[in-house]
């Protein structure tokens, strides 16, 4: 038998499951396969990599410890929208599908799905042989239970809204249908996430009120320990099989443990990174240069699905004229903001309503946005009847151009506001800055008493435009009091168009309207730079920054 034939027959045996682990390893070694290659053979055959073999392939063992700035609220995904908690429970719970690194959606606990002609029914075929951490089996009942429970107890969940109009029916143990009242294009984004992670009725009921402290899911890591205010630890799930396609390791993680230390102070975080108490920290502009030149650490870079913007409240007398808003947009020098405040490349200038990190971004729209041009800005204001007074501040009909800008007490926003103030002063606009605490600001903006707002949002789907600019959100997230029936209609269309390309076209059109009306002057997209201790090898990241841990291992 040639070596190739031997390999072929070995593969066949693996696929037929007619070979035990020991003889596989013996034959693999005889063929000159490295342990890693053997793991890949198994992975390619869709076989869970046996624990012992994975250990031989990379190095199994050790832990990866990250940092949280505060205690998770709870580890029950249905009871919170807390981003801190998400970091942890997203490693414990697997959803039906996941978003791949090319932003498309693929099956995880679901093997595949079909969407009905009218887009109102999705039929999921579930993967077989998946177990929860407590050994119970995942099946169609788990899916129905999860969605029903979410609908019932999920008032604090970010997917409480969409789940209200979904009906789940069990067809057979490996088939479920989701029926919608209206087509929902945001469904995949919302449900391809730990917030929609699957749970099992018996596991939840066994934990009682303490499920949020002792969660049971089916993802690569299982809950181990939570020392309140101190640390959270997960351990590898030996029977893990449902891994995303972007991993080479298709089975149990190489890492034995995944940990988080709760450290609020940035200085203490950096010190803990130095001492090796934690393995990764997001760097500030101050710490960045030092760590970039330190070969104990590798710097991971990620574009945030986030936009910093200057909001202009169109319902306020000073901001009602589109020419005034356009003039302000012309006077903003984004590059200066980025270079001054986000030194070390911690942000990129963005002029379109959707930043490049979010589907729906369109580079061609950039040319249609008001470019930095002080002369154009001044001319627009002159034409609009705002003329410079003796002190260089423009006025019209006895009213001074002194817009009230509001922002939070964040140092970054404060600096950005100050820079914007200086930039707008050059065209005779005298911005007055008000900084109030975040929770208070969120209560203040619905009143509509601010002319300008320095703020940002974070969201990974273009539906973000609905959340922040739809006229149905005046009381909450539409902080700039923008209302435009044309845009409203487009944003609803975007929510209901399931075809990817057609949906993106809708958002291109929506952005054209926003670029013209300027409820926001987009400013920047933050970049996260994370220092990771080099003892951690093979770590992957999602384009938007999340660590993908299944290939990671520890080199001692």
């Amino acid at each position, binding site marked *: 038998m040639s070596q190739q034939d031997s390999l072929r027959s070995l593969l066949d045996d693996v696929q037929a499951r007619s070979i035990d682990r020991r003889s596989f390893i013996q034959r693999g070694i005889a063929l000159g396969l490295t342990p890693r290659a053997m793991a890949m053979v198994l992975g390619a055959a869709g076989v869970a990599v046996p624990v012992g073999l994975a250990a031989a392939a990379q190095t199994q063992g050790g832990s990866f410890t990250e940092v949280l700035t505060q205690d998770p609220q709870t580890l029950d995904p249905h009871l919170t929208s807390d981003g801190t908690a998400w970091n942890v429970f997203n490693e414990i719970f697997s959803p039906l599908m996941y978003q791949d690194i090319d932003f498309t959606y693929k099956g995880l606990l679901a093997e595949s799905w079909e969407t009905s002609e009218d887009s109102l029914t999705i039929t999921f075929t579930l993967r077989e042989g998946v177990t929860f951490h407590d050994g119970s089996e995942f099946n169609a009942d788990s899916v129905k239970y999860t969605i029903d429970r979410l609908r019932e107890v999920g008032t604090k969940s970010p997917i409480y809204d969409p789940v209200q109009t979904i009906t789940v029916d069990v067809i057979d143990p490996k088939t479920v249908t989701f029926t919608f009242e209206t087509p929902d294009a945001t469904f995949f984004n919302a449900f391809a996430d730990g917030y929609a992670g699957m749970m099992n009725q018996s596991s939840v009921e066994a934990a009682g009120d303490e499920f949020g402290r002792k969660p049971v899911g089916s993802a690569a890591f299982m809950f181990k320990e939570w020392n309140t*205010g101190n640390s959270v630890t997960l351990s590898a799930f030996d029977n893990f099989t449902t891994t995303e396609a972007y991993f080479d390791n298709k089975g149990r993680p190489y890492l034995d443990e995944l940990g988080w230390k709760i450290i609020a102070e940035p200085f203490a975080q950096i010190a803990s990174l130095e*001492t090796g108490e934690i393995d990764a920290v997001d760097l500030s502009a101050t710490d960045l240069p030092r760590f970039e030149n330190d070969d104990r650490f590798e710097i991971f870079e990620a574009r945030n699905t986030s936009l910093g913007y200057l909001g202009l409240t169109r319902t306020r007398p000073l901001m009602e004229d589109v020419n005034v808003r356009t003039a302000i947009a012309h006077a903003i020098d984004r590059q200066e903001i980025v270079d001054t405040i986000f030194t070390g490349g911690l942000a990129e200038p963005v002029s379109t309503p959707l930043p490049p990190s979010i589907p729906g971004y369109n580079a061609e729209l950039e040319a249609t946005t008001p470019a930095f041009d002080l002369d154009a800005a001044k001319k627009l204001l002159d034409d609009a009847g705002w003329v410079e007074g003796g002190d260089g501040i423009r006025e019209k009909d006895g009213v001074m151009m002194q817009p009230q800008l509001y922002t939070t007490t964040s140092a970054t926003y404060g600096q950005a506001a100050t820079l914007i103030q200086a930039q707008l002063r050059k065209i005779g606009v005298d911005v007055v800055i008000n900084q109030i605490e975040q929770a*208070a600001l969120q209560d203040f903006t619905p009143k509509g008493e601010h002319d300008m707002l320095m703020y940002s949002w974070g969201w990974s789907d273009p539906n973000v435009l609905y959340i922040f600019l739809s006229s149905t959100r005046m009381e909450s997230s539409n902080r700039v009091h923008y209302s435009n029936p044309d845009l409203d209609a487009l944003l609803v269309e975007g929510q209901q168009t399931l075809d990817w390309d057609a949906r993106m076209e809708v958002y291109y059109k929506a952005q054209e309207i926003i670029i013209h009306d300027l409820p926001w002057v987009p400013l920047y997209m933050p970049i996260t730079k994370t220092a990771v201790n080099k003892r951690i090898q093979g770590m992957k990241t999602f384009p938007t920054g999340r660590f993908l841990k299944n290939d990671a291992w520890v080199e001692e």
Partner: protein
Amino acid sequence: MLAYIIRRILQSFIVLIGVSIAVAAMTQFVPGDPAKMILGDNASPEALEALREDLGLNDPFYVQYWRFVERLVTEGSLGKSIRTNREVLTEIGERFPNTLILTLGAVLVSSTIGIASGVLASVRRGKPTDIAVLVGTTIGLSVPSFWVALLMIWLFAVKLHWLPVTGSGSWKHAVMPIITLSLGAIATKSRLTRSSMLEVLGQDYIRTSRAKGLSERRVVIRHALRNALLPVITIIGLQFGGLLGGAFITETIFSWPGVGQLAVSSILFRDFPVVQGTVLLVTVAFVFSNLLVDIAYAWVDPRIRYS
């Protein structure tokens, strides 16, 4: 004495009721909506309304307060945390022992070092020891504890690797937080002990004891110190409350899982039941420590009688 203690405890209840009403009223007027804080930007108006209803935030202030009192009396519960859904008492109960370790540790450390250095300075008045203590206490009082904490982290954790940067669980974790918390208190107690000692050492009965031929050690420890301690004990009691407050900052720096850390995050998040619980806890601790001080007076100075 017993009647006095009972009366004092009854009085403390009135203080607690007053404080709880004040906190409950404050939560009504502080801007910020817990529902928005929890749900974030994606929440529809309907979802926000559903959650407000769920949390009972739509009821008028007196209804909410009455519900709080009712639950406290009938179930012995301070309600559930808005953020975590757990009993406020559980949340606080998990953390209070940690805060107590810091606070009592700081009381112990600051009293020992403070009193000892104060006595030393008073008996060596005007000598190099006195001047060294003076300089030390001046530094202790004027240097911000936050800054000392950062320096200690840099030196003992990052450079020397003697102590862990943050966390809890072993005596090593407690060293830096306790020192940070003690610094100011050491200085205050040292200064106070010194001046009080100097006053006592000038008294006639001290001269008498010396004339009797008692050893200097005995004069200072048995006769002078006991009398000089009275104002120091007052300060220890008062500082206990201050240390609880200071522990809030220290806990944040060192990520020490105490009540302070909980209080700070609850305030930022408008988790009112937890804010209410932590404020009540601190009030109880404050009232109780003052009571202990008053009782300690009687022990130190038998001339003090309560009625």
